[in-house]
């Protein structure tokens, strides 16, 4: 029996080897193992925790079914954090994509010091979010910050920025747009440069102006790039944390509280790991849902050239 099993295993290995699959699996094995340990296992653990009351220090896990999820439905702070997160996503994703596209079109032309300015726009992307947020915190300072100095110079009233419940979220959104703009610009630029020039030449011969060429050729042929950016930026925007933590800590009065910050607080300030896990699962479902919808819908705009 055992020898029969050994023979079968040997046969499978031989077949895999013949197909050179074994080597491939061996090469990717370290990544798969590490991904499993550091990504998949914690994700499964989070899913399990979401059905438990977790008391880590006492090592006590009490199964409570869907109680964490039902509690979320009536949690006003979580509701506020969800609304803030959605506001952040629906604002930052299209605006930063649109501005990135405009910049990409500008940088697609030839002009003096182009590469320098490209680097300037891309620099925020490679800067640490925390470090940049600290600098912006000072720029937003109502007394000493550069923004109010500029407003004063042009005769406009000074603003409280991060100090105001109404202005804090828009202030974080402005920072986040600045941070992601360069990346969107570079991706769009790559997309624009991949569009064959003959389309533009043919359109020009047919009498299409620059604006018409942009809307009729560039925008449709950039649809796969746009889809990628919407999904990628959407996923990142749902997970927003660093800049909120540094700039406002979720305040004032929860006006900038977001889901990831709230689950962090539930886990590490209130020690409700089960509840925090339920919040993480809700966020996961949100991200998955939006990504699937965007992906399916984007199939309609697929292009080949």
């Amino acid at each position, binding site marked *: 029996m055992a020898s029969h099993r050994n023979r079968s295993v040997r046969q499978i290995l031989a077949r895999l080897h013949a197909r050179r699959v074994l080597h491939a699996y061996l090469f990717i094995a370290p990544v798969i193992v590490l991904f499993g340990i550091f990504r998949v296992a914690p994700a499964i653990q989070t899913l399990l925790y979401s059905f438990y009351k977790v*008391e*880590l*220090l*006492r090592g006590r896990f009490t199964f409570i079914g869907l109680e964490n999820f039902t509690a979320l439905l009536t949690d*006003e*702070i979580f509701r506020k954090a969800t609304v803030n997160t959605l506001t952040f996503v629906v604002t930052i994703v299209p605006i930063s994509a649109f501005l990135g596209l405009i910049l990409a079109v500008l940088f697609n032309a030839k002009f003096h010091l182009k590469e320098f300015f490209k680097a300037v726009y891309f620099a925020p992307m490679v800067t640490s979010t925390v470090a940049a947020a600290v600098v912006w915190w000072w720029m937003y300072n*109502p*007394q000493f910050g550069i923004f109010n100095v500029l407003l004063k110079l042009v005769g406009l009233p*000074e603003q*409280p920025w*991060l*100090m*105001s*419940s*109404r202005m804090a979220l828009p202030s974080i959104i402005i920072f986040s747009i600045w941070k992601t703009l360069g990346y969107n610009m570079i991706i769009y630029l790559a997309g624009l440069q991949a569009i064959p020039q003959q389309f533009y030449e043919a359109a020009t011969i047919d009498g299409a102006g620059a604006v018409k060429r942009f809307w009729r050729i560039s925008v449709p042929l950039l649809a796969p790039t746009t889809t990628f950016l919407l999904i990628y930026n959407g996923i990142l925007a749902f997970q927003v944390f660093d800049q909120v933590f540094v700039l*406002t*800590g979720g*305040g*004032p*009065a*929860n*006006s900038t509280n977001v889901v990831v910050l709230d689950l962090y607080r539930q886990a*590490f*300030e*209130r*020690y*409700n790991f089960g509840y925090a896990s339920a919040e993480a699962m809700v966020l996961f479902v949100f991200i998955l849902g939006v990504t699937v919808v965007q992906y399916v819908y984007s199939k309609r705009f697929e292009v080949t050239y």
Partner: protein
Amino acid sequence: MRGAKALAIALALLLLSPALALAGAAKTITLWYPAGDITAGAAHFADKTLFADFEAKNNVKVEAVALDYDTMQQKIFAAAAGKNIADILFIDTSWLPGFLKEEMLEPVADAKAKAWLAAVSPEIKELSDYGKGRMWGYPQYGIDVYGLTWNKEQFKEAGLDPEKPPKTWAEFREYAKKLTKRDAQGNITRVGYAIRHVGHPHGVVHKHFWAIYGAGAALIDNPNTLRGGKAMINTPGGKAALQLVLDMLDVDKSTSLNFPDPRAAFLKGIASMQISETVSIRGRQPKEAPELKWGMALPPVPKAGDKPVTLLGAWLYSVPKQAKNKALAWKAIDWINSQEKDFDLCKKYGASPRYAANWDKEPFKSDPYDQGLKQLYPSGKKLPINLGLNGIMDAMGGAIQKVWHHEASIDAALAEADRLANKAIADAAK
């Protein structure tokens, strides 16, 4: 053969030498404290000589490690869960309920607690006793008592007596109006009174505690109960406390949302009055505003004859249950909190002592700041110890911010805060 034996002995000695060396080396115990100027006393841990005598007598090394204050509470919890935590924790008392909820701390032995409570001054007893003589740590010298501090030069400039601070809310509003300065466009360049309205909600509550409690409101009905209870936020007193600052913002225009750090504004001379930890002003003023002449008094009360209330807080030396060297940790704590060290260290660092007997000695006996503190202490009240304190503070801090930012009416904000606080109390009691 003899050569082989000698070689074997030499090899054995070589292998044993690290163990022998370790046996003679000092044992290390760790202490975690907050980095920066979060509390005046934390900076003393950077002094390498602080535990020198203890280290020499006990062949032990006390390694003090500074942690970022904002994430310190979370790091402590994660370290406890990972069973890789410091032997001594220097913690903010407002974190204590959260740690107690998780049964994370070792209690002070009953006999030691009894001796401590009998020897220290009343305010230290108030801060140390968590009900029926139970203690979870020793408050450090130089405790935080919140007081009104004012700029004497600016009082003079505004025609006010620099030695007479406002005693009632009406006086307080009047003084603040007189002290406020504006530029040609009407923008406020100096506030009469600076308020804390942003940052961690706990900090917002700390700095408005005097008005909430002074007006007869409270965070919870029974402050000395760990589980259960009822929030006392949505009361006439709570409403009056919020209305006071709202009027100063909107009617008097003697304070502003644009001066969010009261202590920094006071030290920079752009706020004439502020209410926060006096020990912080005492510690920072010589470096940041050496010319500043300031006074210190109890916060004002709603009307003449009312009893003033102010916040009393401290940082505690405590030992986590997961500590690896508990016996040595307690030994080090007992040593640094002894009457003798209390005197030596307070004298060295200019801090206020804890032992009643030390108050009668020089330099504390004739130090005007220390004697000033003695006027504030009797009105000091510590935060409730309820396990839901985190949630109560978040709720109250949120209400304060919403009202002062004109996001909600006082009634609506306090009703919401009351609901959230009661939910936090109930959740923590489960």
